[in-house]
């Protein structure tokens, strides 16, 4: 079975737990006082899903950076995005919508987005009404997950969902680019670009 390689980026305000979620998932580690990310961290994990296997190359960005500001091919090759907010911080939730807008305008059309309401182990300090968050994501047609990087709740499930949605969204290219691939790995991004540049013209 083929391995699909894909890049995903983490986005969200500072200190919502982007790095912690990625680390929990990839290394099963949790540090209470995770240092602030400068630039970006890079983590990889091979995920087995029923349809095949997906190698997730996770670009974990700094909350203070606008994610596209790091490198030109940064978001362009991203197949998935994880937007994180902190359920105990109203402001971080309010920013989710602007991250979605940014992705819709800058990233590839079929980018898979999921939203994580993180720190759900701190239910007592919750500032975001859960039904409100769910309703918002439903309207945006984006999956929402309650996660806790501390306890691990929802983390595995969320990344699995992300991986399998990415697989579904890109399986069309799997066979096609697999034949042409110089590298033997499926470089989804490249074939996708050519398609896009042909179809899209100057529409954006």
């Amino acid at each position: 079975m083929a391995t699909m390689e894909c890049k995903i980026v983490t986005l969200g305000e500072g200190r919502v737990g982007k790095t912690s979620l990625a680390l929990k998932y990839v290394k099963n580690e949790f540090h209470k006082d995770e240092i602030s990310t400068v630039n970006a961290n890079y983590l990889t994990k091979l995920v087995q899903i029923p349809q095949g296997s997906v190698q997730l190359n996770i670009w974990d960005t700094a909350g203070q950076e606008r994610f596209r500001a790091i490198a030109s091919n940064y978001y362009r090759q991203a197949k998935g995005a994880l937007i994180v907010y902190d359920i105990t911080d109203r402001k971080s939730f309010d920013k989710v919508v602007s991250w979605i807008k940014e992705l819709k305008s800058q990233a590839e059309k079929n980018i898979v987005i999921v939203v994580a309401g993180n720190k759900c182990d701190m239910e007592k300090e919750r500032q975001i009404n859960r039904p409100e968050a769910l309703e918002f994501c439903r309207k945006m047609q984006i999956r929402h997950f309650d996660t806790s990087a501390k306890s691990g709740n929802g983390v595995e499930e969320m990344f699995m969902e992300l991986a399998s949605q990415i697989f579904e969204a890109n399986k069309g290219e799997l066979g096609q680019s697999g034949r042409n691939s110089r590298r033997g790995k499926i470089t989804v991004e490249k074939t996708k670009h050519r398609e896009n540049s042909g179809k899209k013209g100057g529409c954006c």
Partner: protein
Amino acid sequence: MNEELIPADHALDPQSFYTHILGKNFSTIRQAALSASLGKLRNRFISWRLFLGVLNETDSAEGWIQASRELRNEYHIMQESYKKVHVQDLDPLIFNPLSQSVENPWNSFYQDNELKQVIKNDIDRTFQERALFQKEETKEMMIRVLFTWSKNNPEISYRQGMNELLAVFFIVAVAEKFEKDDGIPEHAARILQELNDPTQTEADIYWMFTRLMALSVKELFLPVVVAKKKPINNLLSFEKSGYHNELVNTDKTNEASASVILKRSHRIHHRFLQALDKQLYMYIESQKIEPQIYLQRWVRCLLSREFNLSDTLVLWDSIFACAHIGEENRIEFFTGKLDFHKELVMLDFLCIAMIIFVRSFCIFYLVLQCDATGIMRRLLKFPPVEDVGILISMANSYKERILSGKGVTVPKIIHDMVEDDPLRASKPEPKASFIPLPSPKSIKLTDKIDTIIAILQEQSTL
């Protein structure tokens, strides 16, 4: 896990202060910094202030005291002035708290609080494994210093990473606070006591930080890229255009200076690395790894994120020791200028040393995995180096080679990334003059290993 505040071997050595600092053996001090042994003199706090220009080497010791007093005083005045917003004194009949007017003092009050909160978020997780940084008074002090600096530099303001630079200064200041005179002559003890006065740490590290930032460090914190607005379809035709330096960002603020970090990354990679190790440069280029992806953090945080604290101190010794060295070291490099009075040039060469240090790793992974992920992982998570003195020696020799022009391949380029718009700059296409990478699946492992050996043996002809 709480660590001891300061290990005893980092404490101040008054004898060494008397001999080397008061004795003005500055060449010895610099030499020590460049051979990874400044730590042994245990006068890092003063040495760094001298290197960075907070104190002037040519002044007398009395002059240092005078300058310190003035700077400390200036800091306290500034700090006081930012502290007083006096919202309680504002008459709500005159100043409506909800008015959006620019002059409304309430607005700056809200903005200041927001800025403080952003800083606090990061201070709350700066060196939290250390008892020193868990103390509330430390946190408050760090927030005050960064807040004051940010207010004085609104065009940059606070950016993530500054917290850690300041924290390193604080550690050094606390480690070398004056406690006892160790029997040095009375006048020397008095000077030392004044210079390393523990009650003045806050003002002293503010000025160290300020001087550091002034060495072209603060511009590094500006957003990576601000290019002219480009339609998105330009981006998608990237494959055709052949270069990957194009960046888009619609943010139009500070066009000229916003890409300082990008220019710096490009200089390190496209000029210095290409000149010093063309082969490695071409292999990295062949993977289209944009240098700022890893160099941004290396450069912004002055390598403090890549090494543990004690190694960071040693690396910083060498970086700071090369700041502000004489006029004769202003040199033209290709078309660009290396000015030791304006920037921390040694930092560039340490980055080169680090890349070359993991050279065989890079080549190994390129051949075995046939993609960039191995290299990326290695550069974004640099392996521990047993003795960072090696990196300093390497960096020093690369610096000499570049300055003298001997033993370097002058790149044919050169699109001028320094003066021109860096985003238009393309690079020379890597020529096929290096051993090609084998195609992945078809080849046997033993053949791959042979290729690796061939590449490593072919070492640059320098």
